[in-house]
């Protein structure tokens, strides 16, 4: 199988391309979740272009690595990364959220079979990822399962049911990533229901926790290296900025969900194009 790590292009340029895609998709849809999509861009680019054992020309093969977007509302970022990775034509991206589109408002595997799972009901995707890891292991496959969660999502109790089960079962083929952007729909995570001390929580459940700068490919790469050699279920705690790349969307819950108007769209485009250079 093709190794994602080979044939890598400039990841920063790809991240800029993905942010532009996200912006245009949400603008065309008239709704969506820009804040949590922008915060997850580098994580997804790192996974799909530099990390996962995948082959977009054969998306269903048994020995591929799997990815579950438990924070399913960030799917504009996932759709863009998968289209740019070669799973489907990027011209389809602007159909996001429209009637008849394969690109549903939250990931839908029945419509878009190159997804490894549907997701979007917070907390559930992580349990599904744990089951995938357990099932692949029972079948004797050495595939790894990656699962991206939000930090607000960790308030869901079922996340911790799955965390406990995965650790007890020793699912070392499971890597969670928490997109720690610090903001949820109603405000700051620490104000609404703190999930700290984050690393200690995971460690006390039997996980190996690795901190990372979620916007640095170098930091993410070494964090994944460490996580995957730990021999236990591992979690990369990726510090990110909600709305990263568009100044007026950064660090505010106002852009958890929403669609920019015409002037805001032009400003956002300009910032993204200039930001990565």
């Amino acid at each position, binding site marked *: 199988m093709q190794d994602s790590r080979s044939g890598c292009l400039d990841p920063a340029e790809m991240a800029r391309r993905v942010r532009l895609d996200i912006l245009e998709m949400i603008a065309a849809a008239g709704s969506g979740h820009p804040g949590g999509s922008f915060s997850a861009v580098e994580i997804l680019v790192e996974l799909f272009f530099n990390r996962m054992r995948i082959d977009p020309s054969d998306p269903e093969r048994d020995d591929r690595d799997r990815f579950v977007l438990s924070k399913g509302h960030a799917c504009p970022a996932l759709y863009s990364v998968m289209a740019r990775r070669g799973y489907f034509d990027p011209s389809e991206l602007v159909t996001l959220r429209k009637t008849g589109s394969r690109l549903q408002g939250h990931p839908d595997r*029945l419509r878009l079979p190159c997804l490894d799972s549907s997701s979007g009901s917070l907390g559930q995707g992580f*349990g599904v990822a744990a*089951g995938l890891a*357990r099932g692949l292991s029972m079948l004797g496959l050495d595939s790894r399962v990656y699962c991206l969660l939000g930090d607000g999502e960790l308030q869901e109790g079922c996340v911790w049911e799955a965390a406990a089960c995965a650790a007890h079962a020793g699912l070392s083929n499971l890597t969670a990533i928490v997109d720690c952007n610090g903001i949820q729909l109603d405000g700051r995570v620490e104000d609404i229901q703190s999930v700290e001390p984050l690393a200690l929580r995971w460690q006390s459940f039997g996980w190996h926790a690795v901190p990372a700068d979620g916007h640095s490919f170098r930091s993410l790469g070494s964090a994944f290296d460490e996580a995957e050699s730990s021999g236990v279920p591992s979690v990369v705690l990726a510090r990110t900025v909600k709305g990263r790349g568009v100044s007026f969307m950064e660090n505010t819950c106002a852009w958890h969900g929403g669609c920019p108007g015409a002037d805001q769209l032009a400003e956002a485009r300009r910032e993204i194009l200039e930001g990565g250079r």
Partner: protein
Amino acid sequence: MSLRPSREGWVDGLLEAARRDSRVVLIDADISRSVGSSRFRDEFPSRWVNVGISEQDMLAEAAGMALAGLVPFVESYAVFAAGRAWEHVRTSVCHMRLPVKIGGAHAGLSAGPDGATHQALEDIEIMRVLPGMTVLVPADAGQAEAAALSALETSGPCYVRFGRNPVPEIFPRGCRLGPGGADVMEEGGDVLIVSSGACLQACLDAHARRRREGIAAAVVNVWSIKPFPAELVRSLAAEAGCAIAVCDHQCAGGLFGALAEALVQGCPVPALPVCVNDSFGTSGEPEDLFALHGLGADSIVESAREAMKRAGRSH
């Protein structure tokens, strides 16, 4: 007549399913000794998982294991498998049409002395409303074994409801669920008695009593609530002119709901519920609770009489 718990038949079926299909695995949530599936663990130790007391995770993990290519059977008390984990069943299992087979144990009033918290009286309704879900309600241990094998043959998600306490063995061990979702147990043109699950013997007793009164009651055992054998039930109801639905489940949305939906779409005859009427259960021996909730043969006879009266067929 010999008595046997339906749960024993379910486990027999699980074992046979696992012998037939190497993709079958079983996930428990700390009730394997209660259901009796420790037999599965003994025969297939590498294909058995206990996730502890975490039913939501059990259903989410089952979805993931199905995505990996396995056919997970899961089991817990019905109130938790169907109730507590409902949204996981809905979104992680049914929305992806995954072959997850859910055993709802200790269902209905069979949980008896455990009381209201453990008596699932709503599970049929909340499972049958889910798109793509098959809902099977075996009447005894023989049918429970057959239902587990039928679940394996169903391509998508399936819910099987069964009880804890011993019930009369009406169907033989090793039987198969016949085609069409129902068994016509007795024929008769005066009133149709529709039964699902553990109430079947009481329905047959009521039939015998009415026959002594010169009334011919048809008795049909509906083991598939979804898909519902609507054509069969409508043709029997058309002949009888009235019907009653007997099930240890809430009136709303359960067997009575399914029957009413079928009748109004082609055979609008009077129909009455002999079900739990918008109340929770209490502690007690199952046979006492069946009587307390009006699910015994006396109540069935009385309701059959009332249904006939409404249909203008009073005797």
